């Protein structure tokens, strides 16, 4: 890392959360930032939850699993990212992380086994939406609390709603909140007292709407979860506190496409509402216009060099590029206006696909003015 507004944003931060809609280069950006932090001498880990192994691919690792793997320094050095720090990578397995969390929170082995075997838990911890986001936050918190790294960079899952991951800890802890547990844990109507009169009727309607087995499984699940509920709620609060604290910064990543820019602007507003620390907006793959004065002179020179038909083709390519660049520039300006004075980094489209460590070096150079 060297200079530029991004270096200032990251100064003193321990947790960097990269968020944005899908397909905007979030994984690549997270990996490039982590590599740059490592090059600066920090012991850095980049976490992703992406099952498509993009992180492993871009770091040139055979496979990155639920265990941290170190990226060889020679590989980073070859990409112009030499330094004294270390770069580690981890791809989260949401289900495995959830299972570990249960195991470490369960008061005894019988409770642990009962929860792990419960059908509701098995769906909850599997592929269903929400649990991935929750586990990403959970792992982030755990790694930060353990203190084994100077900097953690999180590549958030491509959320349907970019807010999902912010809300995830709270939502899951509400689900297993001790108050809702009471309803299911106590047999008879006395236990429904908290919800007031009429709760018995609600339960009867609920049974009719869902089927009894579902309710029984839920009751079993909540029973088994009983002793852990407070622990989970405290944990969710701690995660939220970490995200909102001054050691954390959120980087929003977007492409210059109109739809992505609109999503990013919306998310920026929501971060603000939630009181989360926004660091910078990163606009990836911005195309630049062709640096040539248009007109007769250019057309004549090209025609002299290439002949008229080929010169026309070249000029059409130039026009295409310019129209793309003009639209990118307009969208970037829209975003800049949206942000007021907050930092915006436009990363130009790099020749070729960025999908290896060399590409990460090039992205890092753009992000941190390392040229």
């Amino acid at each position: 890392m060297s200079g530029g507004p991004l270096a200032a944003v990251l100064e003193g931060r321990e947790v960097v959360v990269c968020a944005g809609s899908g397909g905007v280069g979030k994984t690549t950006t997270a990996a490039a930032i982590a590599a740059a932090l490592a090059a600066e001498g920090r012991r850095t880990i980049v976490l992703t939850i992406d099952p498509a192994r993009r992180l492993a691919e871009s770091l040139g690792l055979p496979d990155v699993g639920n265990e941290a793997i170190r990226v060889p320094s020679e590989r980073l050095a070859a990409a112009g990212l030499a330094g004294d720090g270390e770069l580690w990578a981890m791809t989260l397995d949401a289900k495995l992380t959830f299972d570990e969390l249960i195991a470490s929170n369960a008061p005894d082995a019988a409770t642990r086994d009962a929860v792990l075997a419960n059908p509701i838990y098995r769906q909850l911890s599997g592929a269903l939406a929400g649990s991935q986001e929750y586990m990403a936050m959970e792992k982030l918190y755990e790694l930060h609390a353990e203190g084994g790294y100077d900097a953690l960079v999180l590549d958030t899952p491509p959320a349907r709603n970019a807010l999902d991951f912010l809300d995830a800890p709270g939502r899951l802890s509400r689900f297993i909140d001790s108050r809702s547990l009471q309803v299911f844990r106590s047999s008879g109507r006395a236990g429904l007292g908290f919800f007031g009169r009429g709760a018995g009727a609600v339960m009867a309607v609920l049974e009719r709407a869902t089927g009894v087995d579902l309710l029984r499984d839920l009751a079993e699940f909540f029973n088994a979860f009983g002793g852990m509920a407070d622990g989970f709620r405290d944990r969710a609060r701690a995660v939220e506190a970490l995200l909102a604290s001054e050691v954390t910064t959120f980087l929003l990543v977007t492409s210059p496409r109109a739809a992505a820019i609109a999503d990013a602007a919306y998310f920026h507003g929501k971060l603000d509402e939630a009181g989360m620390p926004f660091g910078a907006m990163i606009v990836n793959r911005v195309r630049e216009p062709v640096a040539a004065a248009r007109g007769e002179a250019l057309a004549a020179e090209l025609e002299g060099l290439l002949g008229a038909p080929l010169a026309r083709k070249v000029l059409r390519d130039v026009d295409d590029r310019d129209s793309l660049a003009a639209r990118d520039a307009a969208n970037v300006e829209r975003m800049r206006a949206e942000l007021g004075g907050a930092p915006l980094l436009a990363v130009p489209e790099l020749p070729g696909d960025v999908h290896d460590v060399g590409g990460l070096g090039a992205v890092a150079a753009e992000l941190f003015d390392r040229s």
Partner: protein
Amino acid sequence: MGALLDRRLIFVTGKGGVGKTTVAAALALAAHRAGRRTLVCEVAAQERLAAAFGMAAEGFREVEVEPGLNAFSVNPEDAIREWLRYQLRSRTLAGLLGGSRIFQYLATAAPGLAEMVTIGKVWELAQLERKTPGSTPYDLVIVDAPATGHGIALLGAPRTFGEIARVGPINRQAEIVDAFVRDPASTAVVAVALAEEMPVTETLELERRVAAELDVRLEHVFANALLANRLSGTEAATLDAALAGGPSDGARAALAASLEAHQTARAQRSQLGRLKRGLGAPVTTLPHLLTHDVGRDGLERLAAKLERDL
């Protein structure tokens, strides 16, 4: 591909940012031109579809784009309310339950409930006998689905939910919806891809995953945003030679831009080849429109290409 438009439901998924909304809208336009009464439906409450057709979104309602072509935006909150009304056959009971704190606890947090009611609403839209009072059935419903992982979770929701509720009304409904979305005569799952390294890898992975996790075949892949390659290899060599000859700065930039476009187009062709070789599903290509906001004209161009190719 005529067969594709003969399904009742087309589920359009793929990596984020590849143009799923655009392709779903263009497919809907093509189906409509081919005489199908068509609904195109988004499920992430982004309300991008109406905008794609240059219209204002109107929430949980079928909006007419033109006669025979409608758009709809499903959001889980409204879908849950509607589901409760059908389930209990009573507005009063639905109001009681929907307003109760226990239900709100469950509904906001219950794993997969949002997905289940969303896919349930999509299923309802695709039925010849609609439950929505006063509604007209559609020949075809096209879903602008969430990106890969969430898309698979959405399609798999009826099955997973059926497993949670092993008996009872939810289980029965889940089984009906599950059978419909996994029946190749009714439903086609298609993907949108870009001809770039990572999107191609993800699309190949997607085909493998829908087969393994849902026992569903990926029916078709649309390779989107292909750039024109104006230069032959010989012409590119001529440009290279001209560059080496020391032209003015302006001509140098123009030549370099043209060569870059040539390289990008060639890289796309090679990724397209990799996609076609790796996939079992057939691939249809769509051109890059060179705009960010596709607009109605752009949609018409894509739809015309789809009509020719399908």
